[in-house]
């Protein structure tokens, strides 16, 4: 029985991790625009998820400017699938 993952529970983190399933890596700025959050909010969520090994971030350079690339890890992918399954089970139970 899948369980709700408290780390992915905040909607912004669920959105962040779901968005990352569409790509291999995304630039911090790209994610910020897709999620419609501020730098500091996104940075906090990325740090929290990275601390648990759900996402990975690394510094890089694009066209001479420094950037941060963020990706979903295998552990994060598994956790996300479990969390989404738990949410769907909850919805079905309510329905």
């Amino acid at each position, binding site marked *: 029985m899948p369980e709700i993952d408290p780390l992915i529970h905040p909607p912004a983190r669920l959105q962040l991790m779901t968005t990352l399933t569409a*790509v*291999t890596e995304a630039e911090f700025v*790209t994610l910020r625009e897709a999620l419609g959050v501020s730098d500091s909010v996104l940075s906090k969520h990325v740090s929290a998820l990275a601390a648990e090994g759900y996402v990975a971030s690394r510094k890089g350079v694009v066209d001479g400017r420094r950037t941060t690339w963020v990706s979903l890890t295998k552990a994060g992918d598994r956790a996300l699938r479990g969390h989404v399954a738990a949410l769907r089970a909850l919805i079905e139970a309510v329905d």
Partner: protein
Amino acid sequence: MENMAALPSDPTSDLAAAEAARQRLTGSLRLPSWFHTSLAVAVAVQIATAAYGIAEQSGPPMLVLVAGVLVFLAVAGVQVARFRRLNGVKVDGLVSRAVLGNSPRSSLLYGAGFGGAVWAGLEGPPWVAGLAAAAGGAGYAVSSWLWWRAYVQDPARHARAESWATRAVYGAVAVAALCVLVAFR
């Protein structure tokens, strides 16, 4: 109480918002200009030069064959870099499936064009080799376009590439096949 605190207030809207965020990202992704056209031309050039290199004897034709491969790799590398710069994302599935053609459909279309061009280079008139190379390039580009359409509709399913081991096997098979063709021409 902890479990209750962890329960989402509205799981339906949470999931919908997450899906909307993903769609926002994939909906904003754009392919670089001339993406499919440049791939079609690069593959056609690669097939034509390979057919010429295989059909002719040693010397300059072999250099032409290598040059054709380099042209394809250069076009592929430039288009992948442009995609990343344009969108701020990396998508391994795009590189593997749409650009390098690691899909059954791309392989089949490429193989048909390549086989036809090599046959024509050895046995038939040169214009048939050119036609087969052009058809192979066009088929490859169509396959790439179909992959892109499928990716935009279901990004999570198509974003990943196959494993490095699988890609290494594909590469080894392609190089081995080319070596056999050159050796037994």
